[in-house]
Structure formats: structure tokens, C-alpha cells
């Protein structure tokens, strides 16, 4: 079943400069879909567009077969609780003035009334935060610290915990490991794979690291200069029919 379908999505960042050029793809439920491309190819803009943080210029976005590209803030609300994002830089993605627990609880407070959680259960804020931190393998006493007291890997785990706190359908991972060192990268990727299975999540995994993407994802999209140039199942990665740009990427890793 298709969870997210993008049709001919186009976005200009200036009147004549295109950022995303007629991109179409779909994402199945429970799947991890990789989106690979070098910096400036429009992959992050695409992510922001389909989360409706940025307006799009043409095309359509279907979430669970419902067109959401023109919905206003209030009508978008039910979809917001099914989509979450994890950004590249966890330092910027956490409010430095808020304690970890306050950042963590933010989405939950927002969607409290509509939520029916199956994996986590809310009895009190402290207990809930503790569950979340446990789920991302962090000690519970981090809840009362500020982000600057945490390491980069810990911070990224906190943003992941925030994303899974409302048990969304889809998490957009925008280069979640790019700002981490090698060993934390590995650990975070392993954690993400485990969480996907236990919480039955779908991922759109955006990265320039083809090696990591091919380990995480079942299907891969390749983007170059604002266009989608290739899409295939991961086991067909080394096929001869791959786009020349995909082959170039393969030769790097």
C-alpha cells in the first residue's frame, strides 16, 4: 500500500531557478526508501516540500491517497501527526534554552487529544520521557539536562526520540548521520533500523552516502541537478542498466 505519493512536484527558489524539477515517486507503508544525491541537488528542499514546511509551485502530494498539497494549517493537522522529520544537525534541531524533556514532549502535547499510542503509554510526563529515552538507548537522567551538555550522538538520539514520540507513520531522515563521527553514525543507523521494525515506521532516508543508504533501504532513488534520474530496488544496485550517474556514485563507495 502506498503511504506517500509524489506526482510531478516542482519547486522554484527564485523566479527562474528550479530547485526540484518534476519529481514523482511513491513510498510504500513500512518501507525504507533511500534518496541519494550530492549537496545542492534539491533533496533537502524536496523533503521540506513534502512536509509542507515550504510551499510548492506545482505537482501534488498524496498522503494515504489524500491530496495534501493545498491544505491549510488546520486541515493539515491530522497529517502532521503522521509525519516527522529528523534533521542533519541535532544542535540546531534542539532548542538550546529548553531542557531535553521539554523538547521531547513538545509534539506529544500538541497532538495529545488525537493520539492513540500503541507502543508507548502516557501516564505522566516523567514516565513518558523516560520511555522515550529508553527507546533510543539513552540514560533517563538526560531528561533534565540542556542540549549543550550532551554529545552529538546523544543529541541526535534525542531528536529521534522526539520524532517517534507520537508514533508517526513516516519519518523523513534528512542526512541524520552527516554531522556525527564514524562510530556514532553506525550506532544511530542500527538504532533507526531497529526502531523501524518495532514501531512499524516508514522512512524516507535522505543521504549522500550510498553505502549507508544501500544498507538501510529496500529501494533507492537517485537525484541529480533537481531531477530524479534513477530508481531501483537495492538488490539491483549493481545492474548494468543503472544510470551513468548511479554508476559514478557506486564507484566512489
Amino acid at each position, binding site marked *: 500500500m502506498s503511504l506517500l505519493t509524489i506526482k510531478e512536484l516542482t519547486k522554484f527558489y527564485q523566479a527562474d531557478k528550479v530547485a526540484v524539477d518534476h519529481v514523482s515517486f511513491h513510498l510504500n507503508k513500512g518501507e525504507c526508501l533511500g534518496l541519494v544525491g550530492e549537496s545542492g541537488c534539491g533533496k533537502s528542499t524536496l523533503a*521540506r516540500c513534502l512536509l509542507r*514546511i515550504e510551499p510548492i509551485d506545482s505537482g501534488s502530494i498524496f498522503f494515504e491517497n489524500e491530496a495534501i498539497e493545498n491544505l491549510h494549517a488546520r486541515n*493539515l*493537522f491530522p497529517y502532521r501527526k503522521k509525519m516527522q522529520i529528523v534533521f542533519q544537525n541535532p544542535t540546531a534541531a534542539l*532548542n538550546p534554552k529548553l531542557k531535553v524533556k521539554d523538547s521531547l514532549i*513538545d509534539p506529544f502535547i500538541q497532538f495529545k487529544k488525537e493520539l492513540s499510542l500503541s507502543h508507548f503509554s502516557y501516564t505522566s510526563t516523567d514516565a513518558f520521557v523516560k520511555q522515550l529515552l529508553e527507546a533510543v538507548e539513552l540514560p533517563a537522567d538526560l531528561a533534565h539536562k540542556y542540549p549543550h551538555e550532551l554529545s552529538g550522538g546523544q543529541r541526535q538520539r534525542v531528536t529521534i526520540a522526539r520524532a517517534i514520540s507520537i508514533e508517526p507513520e513516516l519519518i523523513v531522515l534528512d542526512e541524520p548521520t552527516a554531522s556525527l563521527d564514524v562510530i556514532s553514525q553506525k550506532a544511530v543507523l542500527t538504532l533507526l533500523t531497529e526502531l523501524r521494525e518495532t514501531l512499524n515506521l516508514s522512512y524516507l532516508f535522505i543521504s549522500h552516502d550510498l553505502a549507508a543508504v544501500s544498507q538501510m533501504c529496500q529501494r533507492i532513488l537517485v537525484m541529480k541537478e533537481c531531477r530524479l534520474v534513477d530508481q531501483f530496488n537495492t538488490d539491483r544496485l549493481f545492474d548494468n542498466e543503472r544510470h551513468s550517474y548511479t554508476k559514478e556514485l557506486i564507484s566512489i563507495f
Partner: protein
Amino acid sequence: MMNGLTLRLPKLKRLSWRGIAALIGLIIILIVVIYTFVFLRHDPNLTNLDERLQNMSIQHPFGTDQLGRDVLTRLLLGAQQTIGYSLLALFAAIIIGVPFGLIAGYKRGVIDRVFMRVGDGFLAFPDTIVAIVLSGLLGPGIGNLVLAIIMIKWVSYARLVRSTVLSESQKEYVLVARTNGLSPSKIIRKHILPHIVGHVLVLASLDLGKIILLISAFSYIGLGVQPPTPEWGAMLNESRPYFQSRPELMIYPGLAIVAVVLLTNMAGDYLRDHFDVKKEVQ
């Protein structure tokens, strides 16, 4: 264990003796001012020409002035005028400036441009000129002076808040809040206001000193508080003819101004260090 220690140390250090001294000093001044308000011993405006220009005595600890009024009483009541009106001007400027800055920074676009051009217009006039022109138009008086100060000062708060909002609302945690469907007012309240409070407090405490000086200066040249109301600047002015024979009449209010301005600046420095989380991070 070690971790906790190293993290807590800088916080202890930041409670420096200067910060403590400034805060204690300000609190003492406030208590004294309130005390005089409640337990007044002399009528500050009661002229008694028999007792004019007296030296220190138990009856008049700081002596009397050229009209036989008790200097200590006038000094303390002057504090009420100077500090009181300064705080009034400051709060009004903050109350006008902060919302302007918030709206301009968060909405951006046309609203931002209009707000900021209006602000630039106000900023184009030097504060003294605005005050003099206003007094010229509306007549001298403390009310007009406070109005002039508000008109000049609100802009700097609006600009400060706007720049903070602009830089913070670009950050990804605000984007995350938006994907979670938080309304703009909620985002401002939960995510952006904590960043602003520190900045505004610091600027305010530094501004307080400047405003006190401004009010005193204008009262000194007769455009602020009008006699016979006691005010430090005005007192300086009134004692000017007796500068040779009774210099302490000028020294008391002068010292009072210096002390209060110094204390507010110290408090400002202290607050700046206190709210500077960034320094802690690096």
C-alpha cells in the same frame, strides 16, 4: 560524578562578587526609597528660610539647602523621581518594542519592512533633540520627557527582538515545531521567548543607567522635573549658586546619580554573563 562537577563549576563562578554587589546595592536603594515613601520625616517642599544652608545636624543629617529644606529627604525623594520615571520610560519602551519586534521578525515581508522603516525614522533623531523639540512643542515637564525617551528607546528593543527572532526562526527546531503543527503564537511563546528574555534584560539594565542620566541632565537644564519637586538633576541645578560655599549640596545628588548608574551597569554586565548560554557551550 566528575561530569556533574565540571558542569556546575562555571555556574558557581558566574555569581561573581561584582554581580552580587550590584544586585545587593540596587536592592538596598530600592528598600531605602520605599522606606522614605512610607516614613517621611520632613516635608521636602517646606521652605524654612531661618534654617537655610545649615550644616549637618541630628535634625538634618545632610544639612539643609538654600530654602531651608532637608537635603536627605529631598535626596531620597529625588531617587523616587529619577529612578521611578526612568523605570516607567524603560518599561513602556519594552512593552512597545518587544511586540513590534516579535511580529516584524516572525511575519517578515511587508509588515517587517514597514515596522522597521518606522523604527529607522525614530532612530534618525538623536534623543536629546527629540526631547528638546517635544518640550518646545508641549512645554517642559517630566511627562513630555518620559514620552520623548519612550519614543527613542522602543526602537532599539524592537530591533533587538527582531534580529533574535529572525535568526532563531531559521533554526531547525522551529521547523520541527512547525511540522508538529504548533501555531505561530505557541512557537513564539515556547521556543523563541526564552531566547529574547535574556537579551532584553541585559539591554534594559544597561539602558536604565543611560535613561537616569538623561532625565537628570534634562532636569538640570530645566526641561525635566519642575521645581519644587525634588529630583537629582534639578537639585544639582538649584545648588549651583552655592557651589563655592556649600559644595556638598552638589556632591550629594551627583554621587547619588553616579552610584545608581554604576550599579545598573554592573547589574547589566552580570546579567549579560548570566544569560550567555553560548559561552557555556564552547
